[in-house]
């Protein structure tokens, strides 16, 4: 689990304030909010790319606030998936395991197992530029999950997918989470992702954490209603 306490991050004029945020073991937290409010800053701080001004980040009872990224046990999937272009899909997935110095056989077993789970066995020898956006997303997931991170951090992981693939990916992520039970923080602008995937939804506005609510309550809150507007506008076209 991850606990964030009295976190203040300052980047020039921008300030992010998170008084308290908890994500229990196996929980799936979706973070929402307008663009530029600090959602990415939050997960970059959690993973250790940005040093907070104040506060603490506790992962499984250990304060990791001053630990470098490689010692935090958190894995990140950025918006563009961040696959290593010079490595095959297999080598991308095996990267974290090789860093840990595991034996060749053990690495092979783990890579093939996660590839089977994510249904990407057929593309292991391909390179990132040779596979589709949906496949890239699964490879990024595989690469992050294979190292068994304490928390998986995802920055708008489905935003570059077309609507059909996005719905398929939501289903896929939902099933995967149910099966593997990993702890996740998922940033999105998409209400459907929040409702389908989130155990809870955190909403950030103007650099401040406004609420953490279960999805059904979030959609009825004043912050959730903002997202409903778009749906209501679409609905207008369906009803006429």
């Amino acid at each position, binding site marked *: 689990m991850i606990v964030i306490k009295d976190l203040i991050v300052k980047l020039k004029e921008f300030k992010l304030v998170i008084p308290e945020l908890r994500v229990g073991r196996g929980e799936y937290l979706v973070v929402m909010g307008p663009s530029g409010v600090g959602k990415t800053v939050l997960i970059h701080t959690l*993973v*250790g*790319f940005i040093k907070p001004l104040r506060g603490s980040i506790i992962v499984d009872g250990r304060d990791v606030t001053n630990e*470098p*990224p*490689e010692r*935090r046990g*958190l*894995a*990140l999937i*950025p918006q*563009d998936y*961040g696959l*290593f*272009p*010079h490595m095959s899909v297999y080598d991308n997935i095996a*990267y*974290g395991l090789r*860093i*840990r110095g595991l034996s060749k056989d053990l690495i092979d077993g783990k890579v093939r197992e996660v590839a089977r789970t994510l249904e990407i066995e057929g593309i292991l020898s391909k390179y990132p530029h040779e596979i589709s956006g949906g496949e890239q997303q699964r490879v990024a997931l595989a*690469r*992050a999950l294979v*190292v068994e991170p304490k928390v998986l951090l995802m920055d708008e992981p489905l935003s570059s997918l077309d609507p059909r693939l996005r719905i398929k990916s939501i289903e896929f992520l939902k099933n995967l989470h149910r099966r593997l039970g990993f702890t996740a923080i998922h940033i999105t602008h998409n209400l459907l992702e929040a409702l389908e995937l989130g155990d809870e939804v955190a909403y950030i506005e103007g650099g401040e954490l406004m609420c953490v609510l279960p999805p059904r309550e979030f959609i009825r809150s004043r912050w959730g209603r903002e997202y409903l507007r778009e749906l209501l506008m679409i609905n207008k076209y369906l009803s006429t």
Partner: protein
Amino acid sequence: MSRLWDRSGRAFLLTLSVGASILITFLVIPIIALFALSDLGVMGKVLITNEEYASLVWSAMATTLLASGTSTVTLLILSIPLAYILARTDFRGKSLIEAFIDLPLMIPHAVAGIMILLAYGGRGLLANLTRSLGIAICNTFWGIVAVMAFVSAPIMIDTIRVGFESVSPTLELIARSLGASPAKAFTTVTLPLSIKAICTAAILSWARALSEVGAILIVAYYPKTINVLIIEWFMTYGLKYAVAISVPLVLISLALFTILKVVLKK
């Protein structure tokens, strides 16, 4: 031919080709002239038949290739850390350091030679240090290497830096979140992704080192490099003899750079 070059595209390409042809012609004609107007008799004499001349020429050629190679390898090893720091960090005085790095590009070659002499020469600023290390630069092989490194450093550092800058820092950060140390993230992600830029930097820097003569004349007239010998023979024996030893230099350079470019493309 791609769709970009449809009828109107081809017309535009033709217009561009006029300017491009003028430039290519301007660059190629001197090379053709060098080969066309060389005297085979003199060339045979100085390169093969006359032992005294031939030994002078080939020893100068070896000195040039060895010194430029040493300068390039040394610079390569030292430029990678500097280029990485410049590409990834921001600090006070960075612009000043960048200006110092690029200075050898702007100053006359003779001045560069004088500066090397004043810094590391027998009576230079760091004379005691170089003496205690057993390194002399005045009229030595290491003097030539120092000059070549000084004049080609900006090309090496700037080209590698551009290569590092073209690799997204996010990739390194992801590698770190997957457990890699900063050094491991650099060697497994940024370095392999910049390999093309690094090879290009080495080729360009080597080319620059190979062509240096002005600063070498000031710091190390001896052991003679082929460039110094060309100037000396031009002054002493005239154009025919200078051309005779310029041809193999151009041929060797052309062959080496072509091979490297082909290897790099693969």
